[in-house]
């Protein structure tokens, strides 16, 4: 079987600037093709306890958006072949001005924006600003969407759509069944490439959806590994790289 394309998630600056850079490097060594880098927000209501805890800790170190963008730039310079998507919340994008934020993100090396609380049909100009600066707005689809709304999203002309495979929030186990695969095909019905994730934590799950998606997304599993190994850079790097390999089917 060929290598599975992996989008792996990390929170910029968690648990420290150096360790999050070590985690990003380990993900790339383990085979990740895309890094989804989250900028910590004070009220991340679409995230579960593991990611929210990480965000709270980062913010307690007075970590600013400019620090997060500098981190992204550093990762981009170290691994120019890897795509970087920025994940955060509408408040951080809207407050400085959507276009201004997108310009800064693009200059740091971001090529896609994942902002779950700016709805695709009321996005405050996010899609247009992304286009202007050579990035993609990547909306998030959920299985709980009505057929009508899901179809509207699938046919809205987005290059990529992020499919959250489970109702609820990040970080708990997801079972891959026929309903999951049906959902993925509906998300891709309009020709968008589909990234699939939410609760993906092992190679078996990753293999089960690999052929239905452009890339497999894994988030909370990495946040947990990073937290468990926060005291030991070498162990952290090893664990993260091994998990990335497993998810890539290597």
């Amino acid at each position, binding site marked *: 079987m060929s290598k599975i394309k992996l989008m792996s998630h990390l929170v910029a600056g968690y648990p420290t600037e150096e360790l999050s850079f070590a985690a990003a490097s380990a993900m790339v060594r383990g085979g990740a093709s895309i890094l989804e880098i989250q900028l910590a*927000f*004070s*009220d*991340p*209501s*679409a995230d*579960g*306890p593991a990611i*929210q*805890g990480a965000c*709270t800790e980062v*913010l307690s170190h007075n970590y*600013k*958006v400019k620090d997060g963008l500098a981190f992204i730039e550093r990762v981009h310079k170290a691994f120019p072949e890897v795509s970087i998507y920025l994940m955060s919340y*509408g*408040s*951080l*994008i*809207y*407050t*400085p001005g959507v276009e201004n934020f997108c310009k800064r993100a693009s200059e740091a090396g971001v090529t896609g924006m994942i902002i*779950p*609380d*700016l*709805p695709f049909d*009321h996005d*405050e100009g996010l899609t247009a600003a992304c286009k202007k600066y050579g990035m993609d707005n990547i*909306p*998030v*689809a*959920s299985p*709980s*969407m*009505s057929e009508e*709304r899901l179809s509207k*999203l699938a046919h809205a002309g987005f290059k990529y759509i992020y499919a*959250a495979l489970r*109702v*609820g*929030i990040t970080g708990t186990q997801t079972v891959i069944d026929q309903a999951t695969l049906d959902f993925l095909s509906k998300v891709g019905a309009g020709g968008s490439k589909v990234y699939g994730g939410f609760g993906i934590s092992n190679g078996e799950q990753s293999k089960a959806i690999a052929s239905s998606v452009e890339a497999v997304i894994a988030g909370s599993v990495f946040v947990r590994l990073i937290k468990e190994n926060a005291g030991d850079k070498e162990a952290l790097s090893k664990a993260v790289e091994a998990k990335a390999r497993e998810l890539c089917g290597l």
Partner: protein
Amino acid sequence: MYSDNGFFDNFGGKYVAEVLRRPLDELETAFHHYMQDPQFLAELAEIQRDYIGRETPLLYAPRATELLGGAKIYIKLEGLANTGAHKINNAIGQVLLAKHMGKKRIIAETGAGQHGVATAAACAKLGMDCTVYMGEVDVRRQQPNVASMELYGAKVVAVTSGARTLKDAVNEAMRDWAAHPDTTHYVLGSALGPAPFPDIVHHFQSVIGNEVKRQCAERGIDIGAMVACVGGGSNSIGFFSPFIDEDSPRLIGAEAGGVGPNIGENASRMTGNASREGIVQGYKSRFLLDDDGQSLPTRSISAGLDYMGIGPQLAALGMKGRIEFTSILDKEALAALNFFAKNEGVLFALESAHAGAAAMKIAKEIPKDKAIIINMSGRGDKDVFISSPVFRPNEWKNFLESELERLNENKDIHNAKIMGESK
């Protein structure tokens, strides 16, 4: 009077992840349906009369009027509603709506605990399972309300994420709802959050303003100004409701001025310079945010006003000048609490005391033949743990110490030693 497709001018909206979209859309449809259903409305009216205790009185305050030397002062005694505050109006309305929608389980957020108490009571009354999310910091400082919620049979979950206060309880409730949209209804307690909540809460709270309008018409009262406190804004939008599309009377919102004008010292979103337009917790409004868009800490002696955002309709009405906003310091609210207790025999909740203080400031601006109506949205019994350490610190400390000693020794109150005996 209500939103234009979820928006009030530029504010409001439904800024949520797609996972919450369907429950919100379904709620919106059900709300519009049941508001036209005579059976639902009759059931609601009966509960409002017999369980909440409506209508609540509009009290003339002659000594306050004389001492303040201006307009006639009236107090809408909304705090006489069952469970002690206006929060029950919305809680009963939404729980009844959820029951008609076929939901089995209710969740709610609470800060000070008043909305949690009201929702727990409404669930007990209407036979629904109830879980209340409350920041761990608030659980510690509002134990009497936690005890009441548990007596009503609710499960109180202490939220340990983020700042462990009201906004974090909202986040946790949204997560629960996102995971259980089919069985569960989320009873949001204030006139904010994503659409349709601002309209729903406004609607169920408009009973306050509609009563005031009727009471004034019956008694020939000429209203010069109406004053309410504004946290998220549920009591104020309901109280102002029948007047917002008219040119008069003056509508005045009192925000928490806390201990001062600097960041972290207050919860003033419409006055002062610490606030800005933003999108947080599903809606666009005015928030206390830093330059990056992160929420800022807030402060007020009144837990119910201690929140970073304001309802989108109030923000819109404030920006266009229909509602005037003023900021009331903690110490001014305490002075108003004292003033109305001593002179009128009315004990305001600390939240509502902000409205009392704002009325005291403007009394002379309104002619003597006109009325200022203050919304006492809640009564002050709940604040005994906050007001006692301020007004009678030593006695309160002695009480707590002797009570703890008695509990530790497992003694009946009749056999306990006399308070302060050993001092």
